[in-house]
């Protein structure tokens, strides 16, 4: 018995020793060859940045984790072959894409980072891929020292205030996609031809005009549901708040729809809930009247149909989604419902309340366990900055996936989607200067973007991560109230709107909404301090 114990003890000792040994060796073994190691440590300490002498003598394979399904028609391999030829020449490296598919990507993506598998480049996003939470767990490598050496163009291109947005504990965690224009602000997609028919000549810019349009559809288009909304969608409340207040939604999820906003861009560190003032009452009254007028179906709360395909089939007159969707739908509708002249009423049109997309909606990080971060950055730099590599990565092969006419991109003759389709889902560093405009884009896109550019304000909450810890119970309870009582109010099915709102607020109060708001305010105050200290 005693003997056995002794043996167990020695095994345990050996194990601890092994663990501590590996722990000691990990940091210095980042490079695979000794020369690499030297540059790595030099770069990591930052004392002596190698003056333009970067060692690429050893061929390396760089992995890049992408979100999406691996293309299956063989085009991807062809493009990668060409791309890797260039990478071999310019960086003596090869790119290997690893896909995290849409089948349960939420779990898989985070597991990949949690498991400590060595990934080099990885697509990140602070607003939909939990980047800050993963950074807290140490999933990413700080890039401050590496960037100026291995990705100098990108390093200079991103202005300091944007780098500030990528910092966790004062270290750069990701390279933002800050030079790419995209808009996902929501609004109503409606039919221009019908609007004209009802005497609406100016573009729709508020909910009142929308009502006129709906009424027109109701009266003059039998068989069409003005807005065949789905009771589980909550776009109308967010849109109303966007239209009638200056509030900016905070990244604090309360389930079906957000209750917590920043007061306005100027008072962005002040927590505010439009649910508690007249905004919500007015909204509830309006929705009740819309519901009573039959702008959506009677069974809206149980209805699970697809609003968009109904719009495309001419069975509904409106869809509620974001700008990018509108731009795609516009072209589609011109084909499916010729003459429909699809128009867009962005919620920001009412009082110019528009914040840009977060610059960290897309980005690229380097995994903490990456074996060759230096070369990975060099490859990233090539993808982002080298027009040839950029086009291969984003559009595929010229002549197969696209042809250029008058500086615009078109599909070649005889292009077959199933056979020729290519995508790499590179959402981690697209850049306007290397984009070739799509020849099929709707002609009004430029004007729409220009109108946004005139009023946009930078997104202020890119780095705000709400720590749910202190209010988990309250948040859960509030989320439940929103899910239970929300839909009925949102679609005017809760009876007397004033009474319904009162009841909703009372339930929220019981659920601990006040405490939640106080906690948000407290964290916003702390956030303000960090933002101002890094400016």
């Amino acid at each position: 018995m005693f003997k056995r114990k002794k043996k167990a003890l020695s095994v345990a000792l050996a194990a601890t020793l092994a663990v501590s040994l590996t722990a000691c060796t990990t940091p210095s073994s980042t490079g695979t060859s000794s020369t690499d190691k030297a540059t790595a440590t030099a770069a990591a300490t930052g004392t002596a940045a190698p003056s333009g002498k970067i060692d690429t003598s050893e061929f390396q394979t760089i992995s890049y984790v992408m979100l999406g399904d691996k293309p299956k028609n063989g085009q991807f391999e062809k493009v990668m072959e060409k791309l890797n030829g260039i990478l071999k020449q310019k960086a003596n490296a090869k790119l290997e894409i690893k896909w995290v598919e849409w089948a349960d990507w939420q779990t898989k993506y985070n597991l990949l980072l949690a498991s400590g598998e060595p990934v080099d480049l990885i697509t990140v996003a602070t607003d939909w891929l939990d980047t800050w939470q993963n950074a807290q767990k140490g999933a990413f490598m700080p890039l401050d020292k590496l960037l100026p050496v291995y990705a100098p163009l990108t390093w200079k291109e991103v202005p300091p205030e944007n780098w500030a947005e990528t910092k966790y504990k004062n270290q750069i965690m990701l390279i933002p996609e800050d030079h790419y224009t995209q808009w996902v602000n929501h609004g109503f997609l409606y039919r221009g031809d019908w609007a004209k028919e009802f005497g609406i000549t100016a573009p729709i810019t508020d909910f009142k005009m929308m009502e006129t349009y709906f009424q027109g559809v109701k009266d003059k288009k039998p068989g069409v549901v003005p807005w065949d909304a789905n009771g589980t969608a909550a776009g109308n409340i967010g849109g109303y708040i966007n239209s009638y207040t200056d509030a900016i939604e905070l990244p604090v999820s309360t389930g079906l729809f957000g209750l917590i906003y920043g007061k306005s861009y100027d008072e962005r560190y002040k927590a505010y809930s439009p649910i508690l003032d007249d905004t919500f009452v007015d909204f509830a009254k309006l929705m009740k009247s819309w519901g009573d007028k039959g702008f959506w179906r009677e069974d809206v709360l149980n209805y699970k149909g697809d609003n968009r395909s109904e719009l495309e089939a001419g069975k509904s007159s409106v869809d509620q989604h974001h700008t990018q969707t509108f731009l795609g739908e516009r072209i589609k509708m011109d084909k499916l419902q010729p003459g429909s002249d699809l128009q867009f009423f962005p919620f920001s049109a009412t009082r110019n309340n528009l914040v840009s997309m977060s610059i960290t909606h897309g980005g690229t990080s380097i995994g903490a366990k990456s074996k060759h971060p230096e070369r990975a950055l060099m490859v990233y730099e090539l993808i982002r900055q080298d027009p040839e590599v950029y086009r291969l990565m984003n559009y595929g092969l010229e002549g197969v996936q696209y042809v250029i006419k008058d500086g615009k991109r078109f599909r070649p003759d005889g292009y077959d989607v199933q056979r020729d389709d290519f995508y790499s889902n590179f959402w981690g560093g697209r850049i306007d200067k290397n984009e070739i405009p799509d020849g099929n884009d709707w002609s009004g896109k430029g004007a729409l973007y220009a109108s946004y550019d005139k009023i946009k304000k930078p997104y202020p909450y890119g780095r705000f991560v709400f720590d749910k810890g202190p209010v988990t119970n309250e948040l859960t309870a509030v989320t439940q109230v929103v899910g239970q009582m929300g839909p009925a109010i949102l679609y005017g099915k809760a009876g007397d709107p004033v009474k319904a709102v009162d009841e909703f607020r009372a339930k929220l109060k019981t659920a601990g909404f006040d405490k939640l708001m106080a906690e948000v305010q407290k964290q916003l105050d702390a956030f303000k301090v960090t933002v101002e200290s890094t400016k």
Partner: protein
Amino acid sequence: MARQRGTDFSSVAIRLFGYFFIGLFALFCLLPFLLVLGTSFTAEKSITLHGYNLWPKEFSTFAYKIVFENPGLIIGSYGVTLGITMIGTTIGLFIVAMTGYSLQRPDFPYRNRISFFIYFTTLFQGGVVPFYLIMTQWLHLKDNYLAVLLPGLMSPFLIIMMKSFVTSIPHAITESAKMDGAGDFKIFTKLILPMTTPALATIGLFIALGYWNEWYNAMLFLSPDLKYRPLQLFLYNVVTSADFIKNSSVSSNVQPRDMPLESMKMATAVVATGPVILFYPMVQKYFIKGITVGAVKG
């Protein structure tokens, strides 16, 4: 119908009544499936306009075209699933039966404690992250079909089920065989296994269905680098990516493609059910017996 004893009126009435209701019930079970079948052959536009129909208003095989966009891949996936199901069921059945039998042998000293450990895992589990770490970092089973095969081999529920079934076999049989000079393994294979056919059929069906429907472990451990992955994961991917491309709000630059989402869901369901329907009648007679015997013995 009424050939034998029950020629009197009440007996006929009961039969009519019985056939009527069972027929009705069978119809209710069958209708949804027919609806799935019908919808899978309907053009997406017609679904939007008229809803689901038993008989397609506008016939279209577009959904199947998308699912079978790459016939080689789907046939490969079928092969993987079939292989895993057959190997997994054979090995799993053997192991579960052996465990269940050993656990109820009165001359197995720690049977209750070990039973408890097995039972314990149904109450408390490690969670996804430890499971993932063990599979990928310790066992290095990433991109290995074993990652799908191994976790499905045994399940506490099936072991307990087997154990309670074997309890019905008197221990005297084991003892007398032992006296005749049979070894434990021989007793198990020659005596116990043949006597537990109904239970084996039931458990086998459970294991087989488990493997047939398996996609979660495959999703976690088999990356797209692997050419062929289990069928359910393949089909699930077809549907989720179509769904995602249609409703992408996170990624604004996904190329929109025409996806017949509704009919496609149905088409994948049909593709996935096919072989199970063929397989089921073969084990049906054992299945019913196994379920009832298991239930009575608790």
